Every structure is written in C-alpha cells, then in structure tokens.
C-alpha cells in the first residue's frame, strides 16, 4: 500500500523512523504545517524552548551526553538567525545535529519576502553540510542524508531548509534504510603501514606521551584508549574536549593540558620524545606558539579528518581513520611485538613527572574568609562522587570546573570548547537532563554567562528539569578581568557586572528554588541540600572571591615551558 503524506507529515514521520526522541524547537509562520503534523502524533516529543539559541544548545547537550544526533526545528528568518550561534558551537566541537529551518514559499525565495533569509548561505561556513529542499519528493531522502552526514566521519551539524509550500505538497512516503553518496565516503580503517610505523616509534620511545581529545569521545573509543594507555604505561593528558575519555583519577593521568593545563601535563608535552596525538587537533589554546611546541618529539597523529593532520603542527606519522579502529590495531601489534616498552626509561620519565606533579600547581588558599570558586567545585565533585553530568559556560568557572571536577567517564563533561559560547551551559544542561532524567546534572556558570540564556529557566519549569545551577558569582566577567589584570595594567574596561539581578528572586519568579551562599562554611551544607531536592531546579548563587585567577596560565603565543603559576606557587 502506498502511503501518501504531506511534506510536513513526511518530515515528522522521517524523524520518527530515524528514531528521534526529542525535537527542540520554536514555532513560526514557515513551520506551521510541521507544527500541525507534530500535534497530530505522539512519537516524536517536542521541547519548546524560549529562544532558538537555546534549542540548538539543548539539542547539542543531548547529543554530547548520548552520542545520538540532536534535532532542532526553527522557523525561517529570525528563527534561523537565532539558531546560528548554536550551530556554529556544534560545528566547532564536531557535534552531530540536524537542524530543520523553515523557509518562505519556493516561489517567494529571493524576493525579500517576510521573514526570508538565505539560511543555506548564512549557515554554510558553520555546518558540515546543508540542503535546500525544493521538491517534496526529495524530502525523505534529504532527511536521511542529513542524519547520515551528521553522524558519520567527523560528525557535525547539518541544516535542512524546507520552504513552506514543500511542507504542504503531498507525495508517497518511503523512508530509505540507507543512503550512499558518491561524493562522501569517510575513511574508517587506518593505513596498516602507518599503524606499524607508529607502533615501532612508540615502542622505541624513552619519554612517550599521549595527548588525546574530543575525537576519542565522539568515536566511542574511551575504553580502547584506556586499555592502550595502560599497556604502554606512559603518561596521558586530555584536552578540554577530551576530559573523561581517560579516567581522571587514574595514576597515569596528568591532567588537562594547554593554556590552563597542569604544570605536569604541559611540561611532559614539552619534554617528551614521542608524542601521540589521538583525536585531537592541535588547537592554538593547546599548542601555544607552534615553534616552541614539544620541540624534541617525533609526532604521531590519529584523526578521522585528513584536514586536521598537519594543519598547524607538522607530524611525522599521520594516520587517518577512526581512533577506535586504529587503537585496536595498535594494541594487537604491541601485544605481538618482541620489543616492549623500555621499563627503565619509563621509570626515569615517571620520576621526572612526579617531580613536576609535586609542584601541586592547582593548589589554592583554603583558609580564605571568602568563598573560593575552586572549593565549590571540589565539593561538588566529592558530593556527586564524580558521577554527575557537568555542563559549563565560558570563562574562569569553565576552567576551574575542568581542573577540579575529575571526570572518569566520557560524555559527562559538556562544554563549548571550540567556539567558547557564553550562554551554552543552561540550555545544554536541559538536553542532558532530558536524555538522563534520573541523573544529577549540574550547570557550572558565571553571573555574566548565565544571563545570556537565562530565559530557558522557563523551559526548565515547563518540563520539570531539576538542574543544579552553580553560579560562581564574582561580579566580574572574570576571565576578561583576569586578562585585563595581566595584560592591560588592571584597566578593567567594561568587565564589571553592574546592576545584577537578585538571582534568588529571579529563580523563584520562574518557579524554582533559589539559594544565596556567602560564607565558605555554608558551601557544603548548601550543596547537600540542593542535591537532596531531586525534583526541583535549584539556582545556587555563590558569592565568590572577586580577585581569584585561573592558574597555571600560558600566555597566548608562549611555549608550554613558560607557564605562570599562582602567586603562592611561584613563591613555593
């Protein structure tokens, strides 16, 4: 029997057939047929956000915490432009999203019609791919292609722009089980010759070092990476995006690297003789000055995206392939090899690393009369036993969360690493909570960041999302203030947050629980109380030390060995 459906029905049916659980969206003229089709079914659940940026971040948080693609539905014109920040955020961190944007009627395209923007043109530089569907007959296949492209190879967001008349036209519905594109064939298997070379190089190392990134999480290769690293017995560091891909409490883990990485991680990067980069892209916040980066090492790079290889740092052994596959091959070769890691050399290497570790570079003042932001995060870590999902916004609080919350599992740490989008934390946490209704989901934020998507507190109320918002309120755009203190002689130009709302009242007015915590002694009891309120969103406003800075710090354009330690550490 042939099934005749309208474009709008096809779209919703295709989402169902794709196994989509949630669509994050906001209605408008161009998508009214689609909203009507959503209304007439119960399989695909729609989450109504309060701003389209929130929809994209929520879908993104859903995707990051589950590995499944996030889905967004917005109207044409302002709906599409509001979504752009979230699309770019997902693009920079290679997160699979499918974003459906409404468009004006096909006959009106190009006429500056009401709520018309060139969505395909505007999003082109920040999507993996995008489509304009001009004929309802192409709709189902295009949706299939969008999911296929978004979730395979190096993942990323895909926009499907659907004109209103296409959603009204009727055609036969059949959802393809599979699509192939002659122009798109992601590589999965690594080149055996290169893998062999890489293994030989690692086994000959005296001071081997692993640096792994978000690609390990995206590629579901955490377990393989852990087995591989233990087999080699060498130190491992994670990028901001890679936290949780290797258990942070493991003794081989030396912390995060880069601009605010640990002393031991950055020094080990600088001094190693063989560096193995896995699913990481030599981002400028990780590398610092290219000429000074890990100067004495031979470099191996495993990445699924050929264009990531030798983009900024030249490597000696590039391997294009999915990290999981390549690491499994390497494990086999290492187990079968006659030559094994040089135990004596490794022992000497660890001795050196432990000396760097002894600097205790993350130590902070525990006796302060003011609440130290680090202390709040340390407590959060202890009380949630390291098993919460933690989203963050962008700034100092983000770095402290990365430093002080020890992630032992992948997909627990959800932050905008590439684009650095303030406003990400709260909506992303909504997506995480929907995907994991029973889990503790904490949003670590600052009083500046939280204001950027604060409207989503209303969405949280509507869907009963019991987030725990940890607002580290220093009355400053802290990270901006820190740079102004260091590099602009303390001229704090427009970084002071004046006229802040009373966050307790604000949270309450949205129907949530608000708390204000002003004394170090109140931190733990307050957190305990909040965590006990399992079915309520709790907004915790921690009034923290305004002058606290994030250490260690490598200035932009410096080498890994040129770290600033905190004033207390420099003296030590």
């Amino acid at each position, binding site marked *: 029997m042939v099934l005749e459906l309208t474009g709008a029905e096809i779209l919703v049916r295709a989402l169902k057939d794709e196994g989509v659980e949630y669509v994050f969206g906001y209605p408008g003229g161009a998508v009214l047929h689609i909203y009507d089709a959503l209304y007439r079914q119960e399989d695909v659940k729609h989450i109504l956000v309060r701003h389209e940026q929130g929809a994209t971040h929520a879908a993104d948080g859903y995707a990051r915490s589950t590995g499944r693609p996030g889905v967004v539905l917005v109207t044409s014109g302002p709906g599409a432009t509001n979504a752009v920040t979230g699309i770019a955020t997902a693009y920079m961190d290679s997160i699979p999203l499918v974003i459906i944007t409404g468009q004006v009627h096909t006959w009106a395209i190009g006429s500056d019609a009401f709520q018309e923007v060139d969505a*395909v043109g505007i999003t082109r*530089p920040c999507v*993996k791919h995008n489509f*304009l569907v001009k004929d309802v007959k192409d709709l189902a296949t295009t949706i299939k292609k969008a999911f296929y492209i978004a979730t395979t190879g190096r993942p990323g967001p895909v926009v499907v722009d659907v004109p209103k008349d296409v959603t009204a036209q009727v055609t036969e519905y059949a959802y393809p089980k599979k699509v192939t*594109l*002659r122009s798109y064939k992601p590589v999965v298997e690594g080149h055996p010759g290169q893998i062999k070379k890489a293994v030989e190089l690692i086994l000959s190392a005296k001071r081997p070092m692993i640096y792994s990134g978000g690609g390990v999480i995206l590629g579901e290769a955490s377990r393989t990476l852990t087995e591989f690293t233990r087999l080699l017995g060498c130190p491992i560091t994670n990028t901001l995006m890679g936290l949780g891909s290797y258990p942070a409490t493991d003794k081989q883990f030396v912390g995060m690297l880069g601009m605010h990485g640990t002393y031991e991680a950055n020094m080990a990067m600088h001094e190693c003789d063989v560096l193995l980069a896995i699913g990481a892209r030599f981002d400028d916040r990780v590398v610092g000055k290219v000429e000074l980066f890990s100067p004495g090492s031979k470099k191996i790079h495993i990445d699924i995206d*050929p*264009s990531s290889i*030798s983009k900024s740092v030249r490597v000696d052994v590039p391997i294009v392939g999915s990290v999981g596959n390549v690491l499994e091959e390497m494990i086999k070769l290492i187990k079968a090899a006659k030559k094994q890691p040089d135990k004596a050399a490794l022992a000497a290497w660890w001795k050196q690393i432990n000396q760097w570790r002894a600097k205790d570079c993350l130590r902070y003042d525990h006796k302060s009369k003011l609440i130290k932001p680090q202390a709040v995060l340390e407590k959060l870590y202890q009380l949630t036993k390291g098993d919460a999902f933690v989203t963050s916004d962008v700034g100092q609080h983000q770095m402290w969360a990365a430093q002080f919350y020890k992630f032992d599992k992948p997909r627990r740490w959800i932050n905008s690493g590439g684009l650095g989008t303030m406003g990400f934390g709260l909506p992303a946490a909504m997506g995480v909570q929907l995907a994991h209704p029973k889990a503790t989901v904490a949003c670590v934020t600052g009083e500046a960041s939280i204001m950027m998507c604060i409207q989503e507190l209303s969405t949280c109320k509507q869907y009963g999302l019991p987030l725990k918002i940890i607002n580290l309120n220093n009355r400053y755009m802290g990270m901006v203030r820190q740079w102004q203190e260091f590099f602009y002689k303390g001229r704090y130009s427009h970084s002071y947050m004046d006229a802040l709302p009373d966050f307790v009242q604000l949270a309450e007015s949205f129907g949530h629980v608000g708390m204000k915590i002003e004394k170090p002694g109140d931190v733990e009891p307050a957190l305990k109380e909040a965590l006990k309120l399992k079915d309520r969103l709790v907004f915790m406003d921690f009034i923290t030390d305004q002058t606290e800075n994030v250490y260690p710090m490598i200035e932009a354009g410096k080498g890994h060995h040129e770290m600033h330690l905190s004033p207390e550490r420099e003296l030590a």
Partner: protein
Amino acid sequence: MRHIISILMENESGALSRVAGLFSARGYNIESLTVAPTDDPSLSRMTLVTSGTDNIIEQITKQLNKLVDVVKLLDLTEGPHIEREMMLIKVKATGVAREEIKRLADIFRGHIIDVTDSSYVIELTGTGEKLDGFIQALDGKAILEVVRSGVSGIARGAKSLKV
C-alpha cells in the same frame, strides 16, 4: 607555487559558493576559477588556479575534499598537463593599424570574429602567458575591452578524472 586544481563536483545549486566561500573564509587566494557542467549533467567540472606554500596547497586540497559536494579532485600541476585559456579582446582598428592588428592576430593564431569600420573583436586561445604576450604586443591605447575565461586544464595521457 602556482597550482591548477581540477575538481569534479555534484552539479547542485550552491556548490560553487561552497568552494568560493571556503577560499575566502580560510584566506586562500584564487587566481582564477572556471566551472561548467560536463558530459554527465549531474557533474560540474571546476578548474581552480591558486598559489601558496606546500603546506597551504595541502590544506586547500584537503579542505576541498572535505566538502560533501566534491566527488573527486586532482592537482594537475603534480603531473604533465595542458592548460588553456580563451580571450575575447575588442580593439580599436582604424587606418594603418587595421592591417597591423590583423597580421598580429594571425601570428598569434587568433581569429577576428567581429568587424566594424572602427573595431575588431579577436578570439584567442592558449596558455595565460600567450594571452599576456598578445596584450603586450598590442598598442595599449588600442585595447577597448578584455574578457578572459580563466584557465581550463586537463592531464596529459590516457588517465582521466572521472567518476
């Protein structure tokens, strides 16, 4: 170094803007770019002339390959190849210059394809250098208008860039 990159891509609307957008977003330079459908109407063939260090050219080819619409790609300058460009040039042709310009066009194997009592339009095909040479040989004041197609290229030998 100068490179000629041949690209086979899906003949979709917007495919050209993906390539042009990539070059402007990443700050690569484009000397010329030509594009037209092939014998297979679902495919377009693009010839792109660019220049840069080996690192940049490596990135350019990788980034182009990453575009979902790009089916195949070849850096023609890596092997023996042929490049051709077509030029239409309108020149003032009056008095004694009329004969002289005609002779010059013959020497360069150009064709006069439009004639008025005061002008010619000459069609000329060859490498970019040859076209430059013709322009140089003309009296600059005589040139009324120059239209160049940009480079098209193909590899020598039996191997071909095909799906």
